[in-house]
C-alpha cells in the first residue's frame, strides 16, 4: 500500500509541534466563524489569505484545512440552537435539529451533529487518500446532462418539504427560483430583475438570503411575540448531556446513509455541500414515513444526523478534487486554490508528484483536524446549549448584530445591509403567515444548477434533447427518479384506500403530502 506509507510520512510531517498548533488554531477559528451566522469558512480562509506571505506552505494549508472543517462543524451549532444556520450547508440541519432543541434535547442534537460531521468527514478523507487519482476519472463522467438529472432528483427528493401545505410550499419555491435569477445572465448577458441597480448585476448571494430569512426573520418574529407569549421562554435543556445507547443506534444508519449521499457530491461542482444535505434530509424524511411511529416534525434525530454527515462527507472529496484536479468545488476551495497559486503551486494532476510533502502532510492534517474538532465539539455541546439561557432580548439582539456583521464583511457594501433588512422582513412575513422557508432556499440552491446545466447541455449538443438520456448515469438517475415517484404514489394510494377517503384527486400530485 503505497498510499498508506505516503500517508504515514505525511503524519510524520504534520506532527511537528508547530503544525499541531496551526491545526488547533485553524479548528478554533473555523468553529468560531462557523458558529456566527453569515460568516462561513470561505470568509475565514479569505481573511487568512495574507498569512500565506508569512507562513511556509505546509503550515498555512494545515491551518486552512482546520478552518474549513471547523466551519462545517460549527455551522450547525446556531442552526440547532437558534434556527440560524452559520452557512448554507447547515440549512437542512435546522429543520429537525432546532425542533430537537425546542424539545429540550439541545445537547443531544449538538452531539448528533458533531458525530455526524466526524463520520462523514472521516470516511471521505479515507476515500481521498486511496482514490484521489480515480476521482479524476469519476468527475470526467459528469457533464451538464448529468448535473441536470441530479438537480431534478434533488428537487423531487426534497419535494416533501413543500408537501405540508402544497400551495404555500410552491409559492416559496417559486420565490426562491425567482430570487436566484436576479442579475446578469451568464450566457446571454441579459439583465434579469436587476431593476438597473448595478449592485444586483451579480445577483443576490445565497449567504444574504439565508441569513436574512432564517436568522433575521427569526429575530423579527421573536421580537414581535416577546411580550405576547411569555410561555415561550428559554427551554430548559433536560437530561444527560450525551447520546444514550438507544439514540446512538437510532442515528447510526442515518449517519451512514448521509455519508454515502454526500461523498460523490464533493467531486462534482454542484453547489458544494448544500445540495447533498437537502437530499439526505429528503431521503430520511421519506424513510421515516414508512416507520410505525414517524418521528419527523417532532425533532427526529435522524433528520439531523443525515444532513450533517452528508455535508461533511463532501469536504474530503472536495479537497481531493481540488488537489488532484485543480477543480474548486466550493467557495472555500476556490480561495484555497488562490492560496496555492500564491506559493507558485498549481493544484492538478501534477501536484502529487511535484509537492508530495505538502499534499500528504495536508491529507494527514485532515485526520488530525477531524479528531481535534470532535474532541473540541463534544464536551462543548452542553456548554453551547447554555447559550439558550441568555435572556431573549440580549440573545436575539446579538444575533441581529452578527447577521449584519457577517453580511457586511463579505462584500463591504451598505446595499447588502438594506437587502438583508428587506429580506429579513420577508422572512418575518413568511413566518407570520406560516409559509415554509425551506422550499425558498432549496429553490435558490437548485434553480441555478438546473438552469445552467440544462442550457449548457443543450448548447453543447446543438439543441438536441436526446443528450439528456445519452449516458448511463443520466438513465440510472431518471430510473431511480421514476421508481421513487412510483413508490410514493402507490404508497399514497394505499394509505388513501386504507383511510377510505377519495383516492383519485391526490394521486395526481407528484408532491405527496406527508402522511396524515
Amino acid at each position, binding site marked *: 500500500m503505497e498510499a498508506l506509507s505516503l500517508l504515514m510520512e505525511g503524519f510524520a510531517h504534520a506532527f511537528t509541534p508547530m503544525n499541531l498548533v496551526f491545526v488547533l488554531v485553524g479548528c478554533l477559528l473555523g468553529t468560531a466563524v462557523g458558529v456566527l451566522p453569515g460568516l462561513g469558512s470561505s470568509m475565514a480562509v479569505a481573511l487568512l489569505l495574507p498569512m500565506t506571505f508569512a507562513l511556509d506552505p505546509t503550515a498555512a494549508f494545515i491551518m486552512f484545512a482546520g478552518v474549513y472543517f471547523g466551519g462545517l462543524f460549527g455551522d450547525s451549532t446556531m442552526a440547532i440552537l437558534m434556527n440560524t444556520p452559520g452557512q448554507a450547508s447547515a440549512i437542512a440541519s435546522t429543520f429537525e435539529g432546532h425542533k430537537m432543541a425546542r424539545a429540550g434535547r439541545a445537547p443531544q442534537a449538538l452531539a448528533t451533529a458533531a458525530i455526524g460531521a466526524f463520520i462523514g468527514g472521516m470516511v471521505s478523507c479515507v476515500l481521498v487518500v486511496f482514490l484521489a487519482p480515480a476521482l479524476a476519472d469519476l468527475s*470526467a463522467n459528469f457533464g451538464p446532462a448529468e448535473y441536470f438529472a441530479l438537480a431534478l432528483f434533488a428537487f423531487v427528493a426534497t419535494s416533501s418539504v413543500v408537501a405540508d401545505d402544497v400551495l404555500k410550499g410552491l409559492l416559496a419555491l417559486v420565490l426562491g427560483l425567482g430570487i436566484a435569477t436576479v442579475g446578469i445572465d451568464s450566457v446571454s448577458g441579459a439583465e434579469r430583475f436587476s431593476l438597473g441597480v448595478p*449592485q444586483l448585476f451579480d445577483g443576490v448571494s445565497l449567504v444574504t438570503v439565508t441569513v436574512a430569512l432564517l436568522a433575521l426573520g427569526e429575530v423579527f418574529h421573536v421580537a414581535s411575540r416577546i411580550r405576547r407569549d411569555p410561555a415561550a421562554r428559554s427551554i430548559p435543556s433536560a437530561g444527560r448531556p450525551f447520546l444514550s445507547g438507544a439514540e446512538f443506534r437510532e442515528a447510526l444508519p442515518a449517519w451512514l446513509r448521509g455519508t454515502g449521499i454526500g461523498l460523490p457530491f464533493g467531486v462534482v461542482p454542484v453547489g458544494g455541500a448544500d445540495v447533498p444535505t437537502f437530499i439526505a434530509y429528503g431521503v430520511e424524511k421519506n424513510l421515516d414515513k414508512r416507520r410505525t411511529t414517524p418521528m419527523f416534525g417532532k425533532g427526529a434525530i435522524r433528520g439531523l444526523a443525515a444532513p450533517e454527515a452528508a455535508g461533511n462527507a463532501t469536504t474530503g472529496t472536495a479537497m481531493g478534487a481540488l488537489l488532484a484536479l*485543480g477543480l*474548486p468545488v466550493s467557495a472555500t476551495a*476556490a480561495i484555497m486554490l488562490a492560496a496555492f*497559486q500564491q506559493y507558485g503551486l498549481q493544484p492538478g494532476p501534477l501536484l502529487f508528484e511535484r509537492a508530495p510533502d505538502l499534499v500528504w502532510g495536508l491529507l494527514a492534517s485532515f485526520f488530525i483536524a477531524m479528531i481535534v474538532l470532535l474532541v473540541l465539539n463534544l464536551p462543548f455541546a452542553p456548554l453551547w446549549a447554555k447559550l439558550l439561557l441568555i435572556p431573549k432580548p440580549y440573545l436575539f439582539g446579538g444575533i441581529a448584530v452578527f447577521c449584519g456583521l457577517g453580511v457586511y464583511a463579505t462584500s463591504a*457594501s451598505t446595499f447588502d445591509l438594506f437587502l438583508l433588512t428587506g429580506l429579513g422582513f420577508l422572512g418575518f412575513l413568511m413566518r407570520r403567515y406560516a409559509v415554509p422557508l425551506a422550499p425558498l432556499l432549496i429553490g435558490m440552491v437548485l434553480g441555478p444548477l438546473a438552469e445552467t446545466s440544462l442550457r*449548457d447541455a443543450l*448548447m453543447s449538443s446543438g439543441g438536441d434533447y436526446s443528450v439528456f438520456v445519452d449516458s448511463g448515469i443520466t438513465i440510472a438517475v431518471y430510473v431511480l427518479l421514476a421508481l421513487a415517484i412510483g413508490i410514493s404514489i402507490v404508497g399514497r394510494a394505499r394509505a388513501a384506500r386504507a383511510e377510505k377517503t377519495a383516492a383519485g384527486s391526490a394521486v395526481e400530485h407528484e408532491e405527496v403530502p406527508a402522511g396524515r
Partner: protein
Amino acid sequence: MSPSHRHAGQKAAAPPGRTIGVGTVVFALIAVVSIAAASFFSVRAAGTDDDLRSNLTYIAPAGVGGGWDSFAREGQQAMRSEGIVNNVQVVNIPGAGGTIGLSNFVTKSGQANTIMATGAAMTGGIATNDSQYTLEDVRPIARIAEDYNAFIVKADAPWNTMEEFVEAWKADPKGMVWTGGSVGSIDHLVIAQLAIDVGIDPKDLTFIPKAGGGESVQSLMAGTADIAVTGFNEVGDQIDAGRVKGLAITAPERFDDYPDLPTFKDLGYAVNLVNWRGIVAAPGVSDEEFASLEQIVTESRDSASWKDSLERNRWEDSFLTGPELIDFIREDQTKARELMKELGL
C-alpha cells in the same frame, strides 16, 4: 488622531465631583484644538510624498481569490517588503466585472492615498454592463503586467494544430462548442477576434461561460466543450500532465519552456488582445501627487519581490506609463466595445 485619545484617557482619570464642569470645558477645548490641528495637518500632508508613502489603500475590484485580488495582494507585498510604502491595505469591492469598484472609486475624487487595480477585464466589464463610468473618469498610473491566453483541446481530440481546428470550425461554425471565462471576458473576446479573422460571424459562436480554468478543463474532459480558452497560468500544468493539448497562445513570443506551442503571430492569425493589468489613481488628484504615485508604482515594479511575483504567476512585465498608456487604454476600450458589438452583446 492619537492625541485626542490620550486626552480622553486623562479625562477618564479626572476626579469626579464639582471639577467635572471645569474639566469638561477644558477637555472639550483641548479636544477641539487637537482634532482641528490633526485634521489640518492631515489635509495638508495628504499631498506630500511622505504621507502617500506611509499609508495607501489599494482597491481590488474583485472578490477575494479573484484575478485582481491576487494582483493587488502581490503589489501590496512588493510595496511593503521593500519599504516603498509602510502600510498598504487591500480592500475588495467585488461585482459586475469590476464596475462596482470603479463607480465607487470615482467618488474618491482628489484622494491620492487610494489606488485601484484595473485591466482588460474591466474594459470588458464596462462594455458588458453599460457602466456609467469608464476608465476615462480616472487617472491611469501604469500598465504593469500581462498574461496570455492558451487555446486548449482534450488530449485525444482529433485536432493537433490550430489550423486543423479552424478548418473544422469553418465547416461547422455553430457546432463547435467553446468554453472559457464569463461573457465579455478576455477569453470570449479573443475567440471573437479569431472568428472575424477566419471569416466566421462571431454571432454564430457557441460559447459556454465557466468560472475559471479548472471548470473549463473539466468541460473539455466531460466532452461538453470542444475547445477552451483560458489563462495560460491556469492550465500549464494540465498540458504538462498530458490531460490537454495546447494549440496556440496569444503571447507575442513563444514561451521558453514550451517551444512547441506556437503563438497566433507565428500562425498568421490576427489575435492580439492580451489580458493586461494596471493601476489607476482617483480623479481630481493633483499633478504633484500623481507624480509621487507614479514614482511609488515604478519603484515597486522594479523591486525584487515583484520580479518574483511575475515569475510565480507567469505574468509578463509590460510596464507602460504616460500618454502612451492613455492611448493604449483608449484603444483597448474601443476594441472591446467593437468586439462586443460583433458578438451581439
